């Protein structure tokens, strides 16, 4: 009974937290419309919104990778491959029929004579309802295709042990990247060229008749989708399946002896993770407004892996915090390191293009070597945890802050 009450309380607090974040995002984005003289940081072109959008997209991928690496102990490096599948599925099926000839002009039109966009527009009109349906169906399709490929590749690959699994999934992602750049598949994938003209985040901004944006929702959309996906992942982790995943992570042999079916649960974790990586890939395509195979390199997977490590392997909230920190540092806060700076007539040494990433990777190495638990370790963020931490700071007492397990 007590257990139930507690979980009810954490559910409510998580929902309040998410609602608060979403409201904050809407407010931030529309601040420039509400108040006449806002600082440049709140203008719609500010880096802040780039960071928020990219951070939301990456946090979903990071959480999906954490589900696999941190909760199931499967060291997979195929995330970029599944993102690629998601991005291309979304792009191929949502480019409107009218735009297809122009996008695929090198191949004389697309081989896919079907578009989700036109399907919904035919009976919902061109309004918001059809846009929402198109994007939803597109995202789900993206996830399903990624999950299907995960099921196929999982059969042989999941029998492999730790580092062999890593290199096999990495190889799989590289194979996918080659296939999607193959000229022969051009009528479907547009070869090595990018696919464009599909619905993106900025299509969600509400405009009035004059074409002036009245309500900006382009940052809210990724946040809503990502929040929904992460809630689903958290529910899975807290279910009996999630406990089986953790048992496999902690000791495979003991878990098997306890009657946990290794293959079934590994497969389930792999497919779920790939599904959300696929959705993440589709969101990424929406964020950059194009789908192109050459960006989904193994370097992207490494980037996401490093995010997971920074946030803490085995912590969902850690992954999310880690992502926003990582994206903010790499896209925004460390930018000054790339600019040649003069103090008076003195030129600050070393500062020039590229220095940002050097500093950044040194910081990452320090985290990996000396703070291998990352920001959150395997704990989760909770109101009680924050409260405990605050009172600890106030009292300067060394009483350990008790942290409870939910977002």
């Amino acid at each position: 009974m007590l257990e139930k009450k507690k979980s009810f309380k954490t559910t409510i607090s998580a929902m309040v937290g998410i609602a608060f974040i979403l409201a904050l995002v809407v407010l931030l984005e529309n601040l420039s419309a509400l108040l006449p003289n806002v600082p440049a940081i709140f203008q719609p072109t500010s880096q802040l919104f780039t960071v928020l959008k990219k951070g939301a997209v990456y946090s979903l991928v990071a959480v999906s990778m954490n589900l696999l690496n941190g909760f199931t102990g499967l060291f997979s490096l195929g995330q970029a491959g599944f993102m690629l599948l998601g991005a291309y599925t979304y792009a191929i099926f949502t480019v409107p029929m009218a735009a297809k000839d122009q996008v695929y002009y090198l191949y004389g039109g697309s081989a896919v004579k079907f578009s989700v966009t036109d399907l919904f527009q035919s009976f919902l009109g061109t309004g918001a309802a059809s846009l929402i349906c198109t994007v939803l169906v597109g995202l789900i399709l993206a996830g399903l295709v990624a999950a299907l490929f995960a099921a196929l590749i999982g059969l042989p690959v999941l029998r492999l042990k730790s580092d062999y699994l890593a290199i096999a999934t990495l190889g799989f992602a590289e194979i996918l990247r080659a296939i999607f750049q193959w000229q022969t598949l051009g009528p479907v994938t547009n070869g090595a060229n990018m696919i464009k003209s599909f619905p993106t985040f900025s299509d969600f901004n509400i405009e009035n008749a004059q074409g002036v944006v009245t309500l900006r929702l382009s940052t809210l959309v990724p946040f809503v989708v990502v929040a929904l996906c992460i809630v689903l992942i958290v529910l899975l982790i807290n279910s009996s399946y999630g406990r089986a995943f953790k048992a496999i992570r902690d000791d495979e042999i003991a878990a098997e002896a306890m009657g946990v079916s290794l293959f079934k649960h590994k497969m389930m974790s792999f497919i779920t993770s790939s599904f959300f990586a696929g959705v993440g890939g589709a969101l990424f395509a929406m964020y950059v407004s194009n789908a192109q195979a050459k960006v989904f390199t193994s370097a992207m997977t490494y980037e996401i892996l490093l995010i997971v490590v920074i946030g803490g392997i085995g912590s969902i909230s850690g992954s999310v915090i880690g992502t926003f920190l990582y994206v903010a540092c790499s896209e925004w806060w460390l930018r000054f390191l790339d600019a040649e700076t003069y103090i008076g007539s003195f030129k600050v040494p070393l500062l020039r293009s590229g220095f940002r990433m050097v500093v950044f990777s040194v910081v990452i190495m320090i985290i990996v070597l000396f703070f291998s638990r990352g920001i959150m370790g395997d704990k989760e963020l909770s109101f009680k945890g924050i409260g405990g931490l605050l009172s600890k700071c106030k009292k300067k007492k060394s009483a350990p802050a008790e942290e409870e397990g939910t977002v």
Partner: protein
Amino acid sequence: MQQLLSLEYIVSILLSGISLGGQLALIAIGYTMVYGILRLINFAHGDVFMVAGLLGIYITAAVPIYIAIPIVILITVALGFFIERAAYKPLRSAPRMSVMISAIGVSYLLQNTATYVTGGQPMTYPTIQLLNKTVNIAGTPIKLVVLLTPVLVLLLIVLLTQIINRTKIGMAMRAVSKDFETSRLMGIKVNTVISVTFVIGSALAAVGSILYFSTYPGITPTAGAMPGLKAFVAAVFGGIGSIPGAVIGAFLIGICETIIKGLPSAWDVSVFSDAFTFALLIIILTCKPTGLFGEKATDKV
């Protein structure tokens, strides 16, 4: 089709395949030795190879080539030694996954540093007169580097197997790769053995970089990643931990890749020259996970 079957074409494809294979073999040995001892996929090895290439460019600009080559090898060795001490040694007792993450971090750091130093511009490897001479074989002009690579690779491998089988440090290496803990109890200085492994691996990668970049002279900060991964696949193919296995795997991958690249452009398959390597990897891992000459390891409960 006529052109495909001509003797000149076949000879030139085969020779450049063997040459590429030899270059990959030099990198693959570094992977397989480190994996044999530390059970670590040293993701940074490909980037050490790339750094050796960049060093080659900068040092040959300052001093004559015959002085530059030993300096390049020395600095690369120092880099490999330093990476091991700084990034892998502190994690000796940590889970294997952490060490691998550390290796990925090092790779990220090396690539970003290379981008910073070169300013992101692709660099061109200097032409080494001796290696770029051409000779005629079966009516085809062949660069000397293509002929020299397999010979040099074989020499180095013979030397390496002699070191491993005949010397005290070689015996220590074999012992550590069999059982880490027990060899430590037997009084082997495990850290020294690991350092020597990294030194040998880096030296071979440096030699490999000179040969490889003489054939493919463009160097970008990510130029090491692909050859590195291919060399790793070669090591897995041959059975990881086995030096002859890695060499055979590397030659096979080198030859197959050049053949795929050499197929007529109408078939449009050259985009798969990299993907082929990974397909081979997945096939070998599912059919014979221990590779050609690998030993089967069983986990004790």
